């Protein structure tokens, strides 16, 4: 009568061990699979997706023609309050660099109608190209998840940094300086979300 009891005791540690192995495996999966840093940095260091299309003025724009200068690609919407707040900063940055010709700004419309965008620029100023994106494909290729969102492109067309949230002229200038210093030292800028955020 005692034999089955002994056998049952021998199986106990095996069951406990199996449960431990399964739990350890799940913990391993959770610990190694949850990183979200890739979402924001997939474009960094890679060639920027092309931007071609009509602007709100009826002209055409091609990002490839802006090689040799830094480009700030700004995704915005007319209904977005942080976009309205950052707009004067973009105006200041663009005016300063239009004279020197070393950097330019291009805006890509995110979910706003052309007439709304024209009214927006008439009210808040800004003389850079504003590219329409009717099917949202440009926003998709840049992985835009909300507005405002900006990308700083190097003169060779690679994506240097992605900025989520509003930018300031001072922060953009700081980034340009950082890039130039990094170029001299051979470093690269990483993904620095909100670094240039107003707040």
């Amino acid at each position: 009568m005692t034999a089955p009891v002994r056998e049952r005791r021998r199986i106990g540690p095996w069951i406990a061990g199996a449960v431990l192995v399964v739990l350890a495996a799940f913990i391993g999966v959770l610990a190694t699979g949850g990183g979200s840093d890739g979402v924001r940095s997939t474009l960094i260091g890679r060639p920027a997706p092309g931007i071609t299309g009509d602007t709100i003025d009826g002209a055409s724009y091609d990002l490839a023609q802006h090689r040799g200068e830094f480009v700030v690609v700004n995704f915005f919407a007319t209904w977005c309050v942080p976009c309205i707040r950052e707009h004067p900063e973009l105006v200041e940055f663009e005016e300063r660099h239009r004279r020197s010709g070393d950097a330019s700004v291009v805006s890509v419309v995110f979910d706003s109608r052309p007439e709304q965008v024209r009214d927006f620029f008439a009210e808040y100023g800004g003389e850079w190209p504003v590219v329409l994106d009717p099917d949202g494909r440009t926003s998709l290729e840049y992985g835009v998840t909300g507005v405002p969102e900006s990308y700083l492109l190097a003169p060779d067309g690679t994506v240097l940094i992605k900025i989520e949230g509003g930018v300031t002229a001072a922060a953009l200038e700081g980034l340009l300086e950082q890039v130039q210093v990094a170029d001299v030292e051979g470093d690269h800028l990483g993904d620095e979300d909100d670094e240039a955020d107003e707040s």
Partner: protein
Amino acid sequence: MRDLSRARWPWILVLALFAGALVVAAVGDRGPRTTAERARAVSESIACPQCQGQSVADSEAPSARAIRTEVARRLEAGETDDQIRDYIAGIYGEDALLTPPRDGVAGLIWFLPVAGFVGALGGLVVVFRRWQVPEDVEVSDEDQVLVEQARRSTRP
């Protein structure tokens, strides 16, 4: 021995039915699907980048609409469902996919439930085998006397 074999038949039948159901679930319903059905299925497997807990198929956010349009366009161009999912994951990261990858450590998510089920089934088989009365049990004279006494005491 014959009784034991007869007792096993229901279990064999249950196992056969279960295996059959698994096979039907695994290979059944694989007829040609329309492009719209495929687009819907792919969109359901991609997380909306602008919203929490919604798939691209269920969201009206601008980026979700853009992804749906792109999915349809790529399907029309002849890309496979996995190619499209890989394209989206390349932009938004692996977290954009609502179905975990089948390789790497995350692939354990697919393997562990099956391993757990097989282990549990094996455990049940072991337990049931233990519960069976051994065929070579010999009843001693003392046992027979005890049974006889018990019968007598319960007779009216």
